[in-house]
């Protein structure tokens, strides 16, 4: 029995990251009484991001100030179906958030749209390269939604985020000097702010890319290039390139976050209620199992609360939506042996590689200058922008020179062969620190039959619930993709005439290593799609099984993108909100007939 039964709400939203706050704004505007439950503490620019205390690498990164407390709750990880999973006890490869704003408070600000063909990935590859081109164990799928359907929501999200960038094509007209991304899909509006300035490293990279026949452009960034007031009246300040974005709360109101760009306006709504330190343990169902009645959560005092609601929205961090469904008994858990079931299916990630070019002293690339969303990028090897036919792999990735602020503890790049300590290391650090140009290939990661989420049979969280278990490892297709692009880009690095280059790339047979940071862009587990046999939610992000339950976030991605997920996560949240406002509220029930 719960200790407290709360007053009924029209909608309860689980999680206060981008998706939860977007949906809360939309639903309060529609007149609904909305309760948002956030498992972590309240956070805001002041005091959490107050200058200069937010610029503290030890507190924020090494001591995980904005990240989840892994001693209370985490996931377990194993590489294969026959392995025993163990808990991810120290944050390394990815950084699960907690607290008001979620990962939206500590993200970097790289704000992408999707490449249209990635939303129809399976049909696109089958059509262009034939069915046999896709490996048998690759479970990639179409999302069920098109770029044209999402386009207005990408545009609005950019206006809310105050995104800086150069558009390439607006309403089918090439704009500016054509110096945007030639591979970018058509847009209905330019970016609300001009592109950020480029760092010197990025300028060197731009030139080298151009000389190698590639198409560099200033990447869209949700770090404001100028002061900006968004459609909600929320105010941003201009980015100062302080270099403290990813992992930090921005002190200058420059990096878009739910806290800066939505909450100030949302707080004015009498329909909005936020409860922090409230951990949802279960989505409650009625006797039929087809309708959610609300959620159960544990508050800061450890009391069990029931929050009844007509509409339940889960906007938890990436994989946690799958955990919620599994512990709530909603949907059929995925079985990798049979391929049947859907909850937990298609756990995906990304495939990073990095190339560092070391120059003689005097280059002055000044890596202490930086901004998380600031990059010069090429998309020539992303998506299906290049012919995969002779290459024999699926996927790709953007390649960027993203000077985000090199910090001392995280490590200063040194040339290959440098000892890990001692005077030789010191000299290499001194020589390299301001004389390195580094760029990354953020490769995609396809979905595979053997990579999935399930409940761990052994380990439990602080509330006694089974931990979520990852079964995940690198697959040859993605390694092949990563090595191909990395090889191409190593040639670009060499054309800069550096003293030496260092390439950090995965090799065939490498296993997923949870220690070094890669990206936090996990996705899948409750994927969207065109039918309930192969997906958890329909094209409107509505559960096939429980029609008053909607799942938001990267958990609905059918497979991994090369791009960072936030832009698409936000566009999908607005798209889902529109469907709820314009269709569901008028006629509650399934929006797509199975």
């Amino acid at each position, binding site marked *: 029995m719960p200790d407290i039964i709360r007053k009924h709400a029209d909608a309860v939203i689980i999680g206060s990251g981008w998706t939860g706050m977007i949906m809360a704004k939309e639903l309060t505007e529609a007149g609904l009484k909305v309760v948002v439950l956030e498992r972590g503490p309240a956070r805001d620019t*002041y005091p959490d991001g107050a200058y200069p205390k937010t610029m503290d690498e030890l507190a924020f990164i090494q001591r995980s100030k904005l990240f989840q407390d892994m001693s209370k709750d985490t996931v377990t990880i194993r590489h294969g179906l026959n392995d025993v999973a163990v808990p991810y006890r120290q944050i390394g490869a990815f950084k699960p958030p907690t607290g008001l704003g979620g990962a939206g408070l500590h993200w970097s600000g790289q704000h992408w749209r999707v490449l249209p063909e990635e939303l129809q990935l399976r049909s696109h590859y089958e059509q262009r390269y034939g069915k046999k081109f896709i490996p048998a164990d690759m479970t990639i799928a179409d999302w069920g939604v098109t770029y044209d359907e999402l386009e207005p929501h990408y545009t609005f999200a950019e206006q809310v985020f105050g995104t800086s960038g150069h558009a390439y094509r607006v309403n089918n007209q090439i704009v500016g000097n054509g110096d945007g991304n030639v591979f970018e899909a058509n847009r209905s509006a330019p970016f609300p702010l001009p592109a950020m300035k480029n760092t010197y490293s990025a300028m060197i990279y731009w030139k080298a890319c151009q000389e190698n026949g590639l198409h560099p452009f200033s990447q869209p960034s949700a770090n404001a290039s100028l002061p900006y*007031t968004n459609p*909600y009246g929320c*105010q941003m*300040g201009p980015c100062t390139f*302080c270099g403290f974005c990813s992992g930090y709360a921005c002190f*200058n109101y420059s990096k878009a976050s739910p806290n*800066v760009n939505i909450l100030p306006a949302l707080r004015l709504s009498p329909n909005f*209620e936020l409860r922090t330190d409230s951990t949802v343990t279960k989505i409650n169902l009625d006797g039929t199992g087809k309708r959610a009645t609300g959620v159960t959560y544990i508050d800061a005092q450890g009391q069990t609360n029931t929050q009844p609601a007509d509409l339940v929205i889960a906007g938890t961090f990436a994989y946690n939506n799958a955990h919620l469904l599994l512990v709530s008994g909603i949907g059929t858990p995925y079985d990798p042996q049979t391929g049947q079931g859907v909850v937990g299916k298609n756990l995906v990630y990304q495939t990073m590689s990095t190339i560092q070019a070391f120059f003689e002293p005097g280059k002055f690339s000044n890596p202490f200058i930086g901004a998380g969303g600031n990059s010069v990028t090429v998309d020539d090897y992303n998506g299906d922008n290049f012919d995969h036919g002779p290459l024999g792999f699926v996927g790709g990735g953007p390649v960027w020179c993203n000077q985000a602020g090199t910090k001392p503890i995280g490590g200063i790049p040194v040339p290959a062969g440098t000892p890990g300590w001692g005077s030789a290391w010191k000299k290499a650090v001194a020589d390299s620190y301001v004389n390195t140009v580094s760029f990354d290939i953020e490769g995609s990661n396809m979905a595979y039959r053997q990579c999935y989420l399930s409940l761990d049979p052994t380990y439990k969280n602080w509330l006694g619930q089974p931990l979520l278990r990852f079964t995940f490892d690198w697959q040859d297709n993605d390694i092949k993709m990563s090595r191909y692009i990395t090889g191409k880009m190593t040639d670009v690095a060499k054309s800069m005439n550096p003293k030496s280059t260092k390439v950090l790339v995965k090799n065939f047979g490498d296993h997923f290593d949870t220690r070094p940071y890669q990206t936090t862009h996990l996705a899948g587990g409750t994927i969207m799609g065109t039918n309930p046999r192969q997906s958890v939610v329909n094209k409107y992000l509505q559960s096939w099984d429980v029609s008053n339950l909607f799942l938001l976030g990267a958990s609905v991605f059918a497979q991994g993108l090369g791009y960072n997920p936030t832009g698409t996560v936000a566009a999908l949240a607005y798209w889902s909100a529109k469907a709820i406002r314009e269709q569901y509220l008028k006629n509650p029930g399934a929006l797509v007939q199975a």
Partner: protein
Amino acid sequence: MRAFATLAALIAIFAIHAAAAQTDPNPSLITQGAYIAAAGDCTACHTAPGGALYAGGLGIASPIGTIYAANITPDKSTGIGNWSYDDFARLMRTGVTKSGYTVYPAMPFTSYSRVSDQDLHALYAYIMLGVPAVNNQVKRPDIPWPLSIRWPMTVWRWMFAPAPGPFQPEPGQDAQTARGAYLVQTLGHCGSCHTPREITLQEDALNDVNHPSFLAGGGHIDGWMPVDLRGDDTTGLGRWSVTDIATFLKTGATDKTAAFGGMADVVHDSTQYLTNADLTDIALYLKSLPASSNAKYAYDNTETTALNSGDSSKPGAAIYLANCDVCHSASGEGYAKAFPALAGNPVVAGQDPTSLINIVLDGARRPQTTTAPSSLVMPTLAWKLNDQQIADVLTFIRSSWGNNAPSVSPNQVARLRKHYKPIPNTALSP
């Protein structure tokens, strides 16, 4: 917390108002009265932080002790539920309560004395029918005997309070400026803070007729120095347009400035609710007040050039670069709507640096308004900068980019540091 409580209270007003409207024969009078209450900023004193709307209890420091604002809800035992309109009007016009004593002049009855009958009737209707009655017994003043004797207040009133009479526009004043004068001088009681007071606590002037000290900047209030609202080019509103003033009062900021301290509360509780027409009239009136001095401001880029070329040799410049430059910029011009300019800012140019020192020590928070919901914060720097550093950086700011204000001494900082009170995390309340 305060900001949110007030917001909740205002929402409550409209909810209650809707209920009252069913019984009251003239709901528009109540709506009008709610507007008058906002224009008069009754909340500033009569709603305690986190307390019920107009239930009183806020402690107001005075030179002779703490006064607690009255409960002005229609509660019959602890509020003014038994007051007739005449009782109410007598208090508002003369400062004399229903029971016959004279209130302390923290209650700006000297300004309210000229509020129109029509507005006062509306205000009374709103308080009686639109505000929920709250039983809240307010503490008696913490004023020691013999200062606590009330009859000298009557004498004070005889000596200093104006004879109640209707507001009179000045000859030749156009309708808009006259409306602005009415709002500023009566309901807005702007002079309570922005006009200097005599040692006997009366304001130097209650209107601008032959009174160059009217709104020429007041004395310290809660650690803040109310600025000059006259036409002075450096310390006043000389370079503000009518739109700037109206925008400031509506949103809490302009491209160049932001409200802080007591004025942030005024914008939050009062002026943001005024119509654009009234705000424009207020601005027109303020712009009609002549300057008290001929000093002119002209931007000077000497420091900008120096800072941008890495020259921080001027005393305080290095501290500025390390602590202030990120938001306020090397040009001292800040960033429009986000971070205030320091170059040519009247707050920076004032003779008395109290507000500046307190902003650096305590930090400052812009008000949250419905038109500008982001309550941007300048963080406290008291933990980081010592008295000498704060004095140096403020002296730098006050003597750069064309600013020409007296230097700041470490002793001035030390005195204010004793009252250090960092800004609260109010935005965190859900």
